[in-house]
């Protein structure tokens, strides 16, 4: 029997509160991170991810306290990401009780950070987040890292998806695996926010390129979308934010649905 597929609610934290961006209203308060963590954990979440979306110095202190509180009320694994730039940023989050840190832009700027973290804390606590967008500017048919035979390539984006790097995501995924990443959190910028489903092509491509677990993110609007990505790719876990907030869907319902469709979940 293979592993169960993991369902991971993601909580965006801003200034100590969980927030949810809504297209026409801007950012809306969605609750207290510790209470929500407990609620999702009790409902059967397999893990949790907290993203510190502002990550200013002042918020860093608040985040540290939240991490500690969350760690004392839940007994499932949780990851903290957002603005982690250095070894000491990561160390602080891990020593306060997070099981894993997610690093993104900092990995591109300083790949050695992954290896340094692995040597101290072990591979299992390093999640490398890769934000990817299709880039159609391929006149030279060449990215900075590999040849491209389609009319686009999967480009690694940094600074929250706003800046391109010309790095090919497939090569980059292989590289971070080599550097010591334990998991890849793969976000499709093209799918993100659409609620039209996960990016199957991208997810498939990355899953086939590495031997470490991959978490799909971006585009989830329903349990059907989770089924699609589990059914059509080798992905290990899915991340979803908005569908769980405001009790639109509970984790129990999602997992039952997936189980009925033949996906192995922890019920």
């Amino acid at each position: 029997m293979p592993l169960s597929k993991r369902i991971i609610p993601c909580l965006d934290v801003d200034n100590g509160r969980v927030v949810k961006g809504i297209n026409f209203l801007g950012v809306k308060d969605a609750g207290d991170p510790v209470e929500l963590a407990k609620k999702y954990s009790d409902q059967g979440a397999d893990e949790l991810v907290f993203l510190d979306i502002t990550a200013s110095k002042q918020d860093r202190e608040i985040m540290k306290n939240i991490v500690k509180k969350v760690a004392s009320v839940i007994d499932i694994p949780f990851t903290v990401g957002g603005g982690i730039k250095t070894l000491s940023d990561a160390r602080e989050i891990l020593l306060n009780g997070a099981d894993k840190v997610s690093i993104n832009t900092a990995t591109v700027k300083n790949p050695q950070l992954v290896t340094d973290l692995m040597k101290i804390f072990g591979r299992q606590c390093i999640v490398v987040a890769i934000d990817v967008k299709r880039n159609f500017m391929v006149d030279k048919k060449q990215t900075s890292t590999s040849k491209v035979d389609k009319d686009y390539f999967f480009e690694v984006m940094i600074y929250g998806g706003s800046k391109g790097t010309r790095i090919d995501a497939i090569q980059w995924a292989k590289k971070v695996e080599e550097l010591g990443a334990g998991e890849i959190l793969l976000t499709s910028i093209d799918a993100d926010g659409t609620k039209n489903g996960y990016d199957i092509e991208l997810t498939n491509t990355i899953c086939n390129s590495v031997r470490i677990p991959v978490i799909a993110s971006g585009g989830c609007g329903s349990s059907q979308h989770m089924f699609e990505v589990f059914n059509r790719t080798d992905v290990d876990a899915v991340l979803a934010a908005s569908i769980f907030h405001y009790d639109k869907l509970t984790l129990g319902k999602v997992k039952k649905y997936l189980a009925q469709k033949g996906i192995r979940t922890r019920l």
Partner: protein
Amino acid sequence: MAKIAIFDFGAGNLFNLHQSLLRNGAQNVDIIRSLKDLKKYNGLVLPGVGNFDSAISSMKKDEISLTTAINNGMPILGICLGLEMLFYRSEEGLLDGLKVLEGEVLMLPKKKVKVPHIGWNNLLIVKGESNLLKGIPQDSWVYFVHSYHIEPKDENLIVAVTDYGSKLPVVIERLNLFGTQFHPEKSGKVGAHIMKNFLKICEKNE
């Protein structure tokens, strides 16, 4: 109520484990860096964070205290790396293990399965009369994060296995020695139940 010591290899986060023991009924939990004063406690936990060689070196000087505690019947729970250390050697390191249990620690088969083994998997209980798994149903879900697995020489030690490429031994028990390859402190309600079982065993050692 039980007084528990967690040995700190100096490698990372023990906060979760500490909280989990307190949540599940330990009276107090100390994080210790020397095994000299083990008599104060009813049980010892060897945690599951860090790397084999550095964990072994951090413990070498106290090896005799550990052996004495084991022989005196102190309940000991090794989690993940804390379990792996009890064997003779590991493919993760160059140093000898603590050689409390015969057998070795091998890398998971990279060609067959994704490594690390991260996520929730089922416990297949192969031995009924376990104290650590008392009341735990067959096929319960527990949370794994590891790249190496134990290969005990004595198969009678094995209480439960999990299926990941092959049947891996993931819970062992011999008298007062207990070990889990998964992380009970991260395994939801099932893990909490296992922690409570361990604490009950420790209480009997008062």
